[in-house]
């Protein structure tokens, strides 16, 4: 046994050496993500996987939801086929590592856009446009009689680990000078299980997620969302910082979905619009947008008609919203901030020019 001790000591020493050894070398990698994905013929998309409305699995094994439609749009724009996507269910705690190590190409997993996640000195992600403006809320059992966040003082609150929710909760409770116990779990399944078994007085995450989960509970009316919105949660898809070409392709595919709503182009009328643009050389804006003229697609490393392909696959932003989380779904969320800027919302695409 004494021998083993000696080996272990050496091992510990060597570990220390290894730490010193790998701390330099400034060589950068030109990762050609686009080429890689095209070569593979498949987009690997990280999603949540168990959140009705955003990403969930049907009984036949297909993925559906808002986040999933973003993946499908990107796959359609890049590869011409929205079904050429491989989905990976990711925990909050593994999502950034999965993206950074190249295990997924695109993270479309209701991820909050923050400075430290975007910055090269932080998580080093590159965020696509915000696709869902949300805020963090709290859900409590109706029977508890708690009516606002101050009522949670001194009580345990369930939260998923590795989320902005746990940071916002800490900030807000500190500002209120209210003591509380955060009970942290790795997955939303465990978090809600502990909440439903009465271990915590409240569960907190983005309000849209709470609404989605609430519809799935046995008696949705037994639970209420508190009126407090404790943070801004702009949810956006993300890619790695290292490959601007790939990030741009994702960014502009998503802008195209927003622009299409503004221009009134839908899944149903996209072919008619293309025909119209072809027939009428005066509609320069529409022609450029749909790739009839100009080389926008090529500048992004995509095909000229990438917008048409995406729209054909999933429709415009408004359609995606209504179908998955809006009036056409079980969640029935209001569009609120997620209306187009023309209707007083925040959804705004820069010019396609």
């Amino acid at each position, binding site marked *: *046994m*004494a021998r083993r001790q000696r080996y272990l000591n050496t091992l510990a020493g060597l570990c220390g050496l290894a730490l010193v050894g*790998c701390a330099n070398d400034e*060589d950068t990698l030109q990762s050609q993500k686009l080429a890689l994905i095209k070569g593979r013929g498949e987009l690997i998309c990280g999603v949540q996987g168990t959140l009705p409305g955003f990403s969930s699995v049907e009984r036949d094994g297909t993925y559906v939801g808002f986040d999933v439609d973003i993946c499908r749009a990107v796959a359609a724009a890049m590869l011409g086929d929205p079904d050429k996507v491989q989905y990976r269910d990711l925990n909050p*705690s593994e999502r950034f590592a999965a993206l950074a190590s190249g295990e997924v190409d695109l993270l479309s997993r209701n991820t909050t856009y923050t400075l430290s996640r975007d910055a090269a000195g932080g998580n080093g992600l590159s965020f696509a446009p915000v696709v869902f403006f949300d805020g963090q809320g709290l859900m409590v059992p109706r029977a508890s009689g708690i009516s606002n966040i101050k009522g949670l003082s001194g009580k345990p609150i369930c939260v998923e680990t590795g989320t902005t929710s746990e940071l916002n*909760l800490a900030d807000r409770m500190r500002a209120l000078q209210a003591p509380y116990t955060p009970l942290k779990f790795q997955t939303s399944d465990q978090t809600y299980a502990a909440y439903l078994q009465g271990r915590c007085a409240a569960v907190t995450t983005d309000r849209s997620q709470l609404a989605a989960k609430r519809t799935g509970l046995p008696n949705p009316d037994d639970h209420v969302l508190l009126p407090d919105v404790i943070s801004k949660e702009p949810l956006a898809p993300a890619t790695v910082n290292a490959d601007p070409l790939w990030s741009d392709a994702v960014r502009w595919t998503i802008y195209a979905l927003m622009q299409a709503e503004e221009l009134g182009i839908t899944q149903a009328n996209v072919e008619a619009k293309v025909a119209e643009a072809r027939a009428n050389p005066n509609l320069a804006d529409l022609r450029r947008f749909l790739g009839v003229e100009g080389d926008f697609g090529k500048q992004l490393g995509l095909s000229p008609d990438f917008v048409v392909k995406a729209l054909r696959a999933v429709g415009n932003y408004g359609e995606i919203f209504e179908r998955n989380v809006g009036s056409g779904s079980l969640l029935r969320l209001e569009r609120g901030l997620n209306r187009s800027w023309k209707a007083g919302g925040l959804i705004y695409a820069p010019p396609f020019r």
Partner: protein
Amino acid sequence: MHTPWWRNRRLLPLLVQATVGLVVLVTIAYLLGNLVRNLSAAGLLLSWRWLNLPAGFDISESLLPFNAELPYWRALLAGLVNTVRVVLIALVGATLLGTAVGTAAFSSNGLLRRLSRTYVELIRNVPLLLQLLFWYFVVFLSLPDGSAAIQLPWVVLAKSGLHLGSPQLVNGVWQGSLRITLEFAALLTGLIIHSGAFIAEVVRGGVAAVPPGQWEAARSLGLHAGQTLSRIVLPQALRVIVPALNSQYISLAKNSSLAVACGYSDLYSVAETTLNQTGRSVEVVLILLGTYLAMDLVISGLMNRLNRLVQIQER
């Protein structure tokens, strides 16, 4: 006589070693090279400065005072202290339980003997993670709350935790005593019962290794069963038991990392949160591996000392 080089007894070992060394070195260099290249591409080159930044998250329970303003290293330290706390208590508990169950296998009572075997066989063949989830989600989370709580002498079992001492019910909340959280209680119970079964096997093996003549000699000296066990048999069995206990203790310490399944903030759980909030996967994994290795070292070291104490002192 001329021997071909592949039969050369002096050259061959050198060649084999050189090849193996080269392969190992090249592999390590290749992997490290990739690591550095990929990390710098992702803008995540190794750095430890982030350890001093404020963590921003809270920890559910901590022996060290901790709040969200304190730096990450304090969070990790709080996690480590939580791990050490659960490991120490579980070590004592599992040793007591294991010794009791292990010696019960030699009881004159047939029922007790069989129960001891059943317990060991039952626990050893079911995964620990499953047992932990069972204790937490099935047993402890279904405790009643408020006035319906289970009141035993010196302890009240409620959903808000295990209240030791003599707590009072104030406005439906138990107050005024030492409180153990359900997460800690579930982890502790799971670890003690799981490791207890393995330690019981070790103890049983150790006692069985004591020659039967020792029992008979003790009996003929007029010692009763309890005295025989504690004065004659166990001290001799310790020489077999202690080396085997070492690996059981180490696996208990490592198994405590499954705390993450039942919501207890141990080192692994805090490290996972830290990784998420900072994106520093390589550094965090290195800290984790290093700390567990150090714990392994400490336990091995202490057990080595103990082992030297219990071995036969030859004169």
